[in-house]
């Protein structure tokens, strides 16, 4: 499986752990990444707030460069914000001729051109869930994450709003859940799995941002999660680096490590922790990871299934989904 690869700025430094772990698992999973040469920042959520066409041109430069790659138009971004920006612009340029023309006018200044419709943008999660597949993943597991209670955290932008495709339910996604199940972990039914981490709100209004993080941490704690697993540098940064600020601000005492899903896949595949950038997180993940292999008492592992009294009424199941 060959893909064009757009790491994005975060993966260069603060989310380097995400990058190394992705690279570490790619090869054994039969994924070949071809990094866009001299890619530039996607503009995050900031550029569009200032100048629309500049923002779109900024992103389109990456698409134009990706178009030159020999990867049949499949471009992968591990960062949800980058993924959203790329897929959104790719989609809207295809949808609106006038917009595409203007953007190409700008690109021409740099001797570049993007053919609308030539690039499909994928998030890393989508690639591992759909292209690698759970079965192949399970085959590679040598160290099942038995005993770990994991809160799968999708955040936004990857499942919403689904510009080129919707690959998972925007309200109740399950792909990451099933990946973690495949690794042998116990996945808690994390209600806030698709809520927002606050994004750049930390820079705009600390109280607002910290409250949004507190909700997530509280919810994860309520479900007694050992680890929050993420697939976005921004989510990881906020939950990990700002956890202390949350505790300070709200007089709480959360210590929930936040890891990238690629790191946990790596561990399950038996790749040494240091090769997965574990240890770079501010909230130390080692105590939690130490639980791997410890048998969890069964009633512990299924706290949601309380014995119903005999008067109780039947409970509908999600399965009947059409």
């Amino acid at each position, binding site marked *: 499986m060959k893909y064009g690869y757009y790491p994005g700025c975060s993966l260069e430094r603060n989310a380097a752990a995400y990058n190394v772990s992705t690279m570490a698992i790619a090869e054994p999973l039969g994924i070949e990444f071809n990094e866009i040469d001299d890619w530039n920042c996607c503009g995050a959520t900031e550029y569009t707030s200032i100048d629309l066409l500049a923002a779109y041109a900024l992103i389109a430069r990456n698409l134009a460069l990706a178009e030159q790659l020999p990867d049949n138009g499949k471009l992968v971004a591990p960062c949800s914000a980058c993924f959203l920006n790329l897929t959104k612009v790719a989609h809207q340029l295809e949808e609106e001729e006038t917009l595409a023309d203007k953007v190409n006018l700008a690109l021409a200044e740099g001797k570049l051109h993007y053919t609308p419709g030539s690039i499909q943008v994928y998030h890393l999660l989508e690639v591992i869930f759909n292209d690698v597949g759970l079965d192949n993943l399970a085959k590679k597991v040598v160290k099942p994450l038995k005993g770990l209670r994991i809160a799968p955290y999708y955040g936004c932008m990857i499942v919403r709003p689904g510009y080129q495709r919707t690959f998972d339910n925007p309200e109740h996604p399950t792909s990451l859940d099933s990946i973690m199940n495949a690794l042998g972990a116990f996945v808690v039914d994390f209600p806030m799995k698709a809520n927002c981490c606050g994004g750049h709100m930390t820079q705009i209004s600390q109280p*607002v941002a910290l409250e949004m993080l507190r909700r997530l941490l509280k919810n994860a704690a309520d479900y007694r999660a050992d680890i929050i697993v993420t697939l976005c540098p921004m989510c990881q940064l906020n939950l990990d680096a700002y956890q202390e600020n949350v505790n300070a601000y709200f007089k709480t005492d959360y210590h929930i490590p936040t890891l990238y899903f690629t790191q946990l896949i790596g561990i399950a595949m038996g790749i040494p922790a240091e090769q997965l950038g574990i240890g770079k997180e501010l909230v130390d993940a080692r105590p939690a990871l130490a639980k791997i292999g410890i048998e969890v008492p069964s009633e512990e592992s299924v706290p949601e299934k309380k014995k119903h009294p005999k008067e109780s009424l039947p409970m509908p199941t999600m399965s009947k989904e059409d």
Partner: protein
Amino acid sequence: MSSTHNTSPRAPTFMDEVINHTPGDNRLANCIQCGTCGGSCPSGADMEHTPRALFQMIKGGFREMVLRSNTPWYCVSCYYCTSRCPQNIHITDVMYTLKRMALKEGYYRESSASEAPAFSSTFIDYVENYGRSFELGLATRYLLRYNPMGMVQMAGMGMGMLRRGRMDLIPTRIKGINQLKAILGKAKTLGGEV
């Protein structure tokens, strides 16, 4: 714009303007004021006006009231409103449009989120000069410039990040920075209407 709105013969209203500056068929005219957006918004509780209220003001042509509001700046682009809206209005994109308009017309300065644009521009300064961003160095530079107290609060975290090699002090610069500058320069001359 696939919106039938701007085909009408009458003089363009504030709403037409917002619609014409937003890519895609944003369907703003179809709002039924149900409040799904305001209810779904993770930062909705802190907004001066809920998105729904803002849309009604837009329809009413209350330009200043809208562009002074902190609402667009408190949008975290989580797209809950957009994917839940029963009228399929592209609310998040409309928020971006309102930010751009507020900046252009200087109203943001009166908004209680007046620092937000400063953050955005600090951010894009880097992007335009290096082709890459580095949110942490950025955060520090931004905080030093606009919010030294915040810097103090952040110090502990900053050290932690530095120690773990997760924080740059200078961003990497892309090779094609001049090419990028040329592209962005041109783009800025092409005007806001899409």
